[in-house]
């Protein structure tokens, strides 16, 4: 898979914006900040989605997921010690975000079975707090069959 320069820039802009602000950039924001047209950003995002490098909202070029980040609220909140906050797509993504952000962070989530909140954090490069298990319902080769379910 080879990405064009515009696709690389559009993808990286989504990730940098998530990392810095906790949210996805709109098409308009990416266009303005990258010096591209809306159509160029939308086309780049669509190809990235086709290649499973992003997930887009339905009938839109706005971002839904840029793993491990979610652009919409979920049951998994990551709260960094420096004040940044992110929504994670799932329990696995929640514990992954502090590492790629390079920051200690608390994971806010509840057990779907009993409803009790976890006391879980990533600190000094390790997971601290409650034990738990991440449930993978589909194997890796089928992650993108239905990414919302995965």
């Amino acid at each position, binding site marked *: 898979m080879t990405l064009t320069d515009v696709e690389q820039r559009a993808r990286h802009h989504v990730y940098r914006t998530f990392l810095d602000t906790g949210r996805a950039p709109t098409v308009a924001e990416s266009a303005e900040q990258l010096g591209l047209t809306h159509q160029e950003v939308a086309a780049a995002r669509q190809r990235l989605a086709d290649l499973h490098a992003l997930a887009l909202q339905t009938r839109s070029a706005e971002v839904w997921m840029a793993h491990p980040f979610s652009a919409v609220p979920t049951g998994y909140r990551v709260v960094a010690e420096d004040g940044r906050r992110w929504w994670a797509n799932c*329990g*696995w993504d929640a514990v*992954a975000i502090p*590492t790629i952000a390079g920051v200690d962070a608390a994971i806010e989530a509840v057990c779907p079975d*009993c409803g009790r909140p976890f006391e879980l954090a*990533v600190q000094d490069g390790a997971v601290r707090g409650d*034990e738990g298990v*991440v449930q993978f*319902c589909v194997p890796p080769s089928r992650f993108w069959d239905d990414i919302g379910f995965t």
Partner: protein
Amino acid sequence: MQLFRSEEHAAAHGACPSPELVPVRQAFELGKVWYANRLDEEYQPWTLAEAGAHFTAVGLTGAFWSS
């Protein structure tokens, strides 16, 4: 991929028929390598061989991880 308090809690919830349950610390180690390329300016997704090597490196070696 939901996070449960234990295998017993996952089984009681019954969200999917035959899940693979990964201890959170092992999932954390997988996340470190799986997402290591996401902030690269010149992003290249993992090849199938690289992805398989990441699973093996953190001890995920069953049929689920190679299917």
